[in-house]
């Protein structure tokens, strides 16, 4: 049922938005703090390596952003890039997979001890 699916996607978009609002605030604060105390690989990794908390935080962040960004790009693909229904869906799904894969790899990169 188109209505069900569309409503679900809309709801997921809003739900990930709420998750991301929290994550982004933390991330913005972290960036500003990190930039003040010096941005070097050792400084960053010193904070994140071996940390389960950072791993969990960024893991959730990555999944949420992969879903949220893909759903946003799905709409843009249809409205501005003139992609027809299934093409836009595939484009969005591919984008989600790309972001999730690259993002989780990045999380592993900075958390792995």
């Amino acid at each position, binding site marked *: 049922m188109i209505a069900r699916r569309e409503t679900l996607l809309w709801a997921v978009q809003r739900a990930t938005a709420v998750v991301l*609002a929290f994550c982004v605030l933390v991330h913005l604060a972290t960036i500003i703090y990190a930039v003040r105390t010096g941005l070097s690989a050792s400084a960053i990794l010193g904070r994140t390596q071996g940390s389960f908390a950072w791993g969990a935080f960024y893991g959730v962040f990555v999944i949420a952003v992969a879903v949220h960004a893909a759903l946003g790009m799905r709409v843009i693909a249809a409205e501005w890039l003139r992609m027809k229904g299934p093409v836009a869906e595939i484009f969005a799904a591919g984008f989600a997979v790309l972001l999730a894969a690259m993002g989780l790899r990045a999380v592993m990169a900075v958390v792995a001890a």
Partner: protein
Amino acid sequence: MKAHRGHPAWWAFLVHRLSGIALSIFLPAHFYVLSLALRGDDRLDRFLSWSRQPLVIAGEWVIVICLAAHLAGGARLLALEFLPWRNWQKTLAALAAGFAVAAGLAFALAR
């Protein structure tokens, strides 16, 4: 610009969409850079020293503003869609813009 565009809520939409696109382009690059840490500290460090160029620093500042703007605009949308309707959405849009600017300033000063 078409005459029916250009009012506050329309700008809020455009900023939200354009900032979203900018972030979508930025993220894969961001994830790639971070994953350089997998190959040892020095690759990440070399990137970080390269990134101290003025153009890159300016670009980072733009991305931070985009992030803050997208967050603020999104919060405004959540308010409009889920909270009881208020007729002062223009105020919400202005507040969102203010937040984005504040975040940008904080980042610029910290740098």
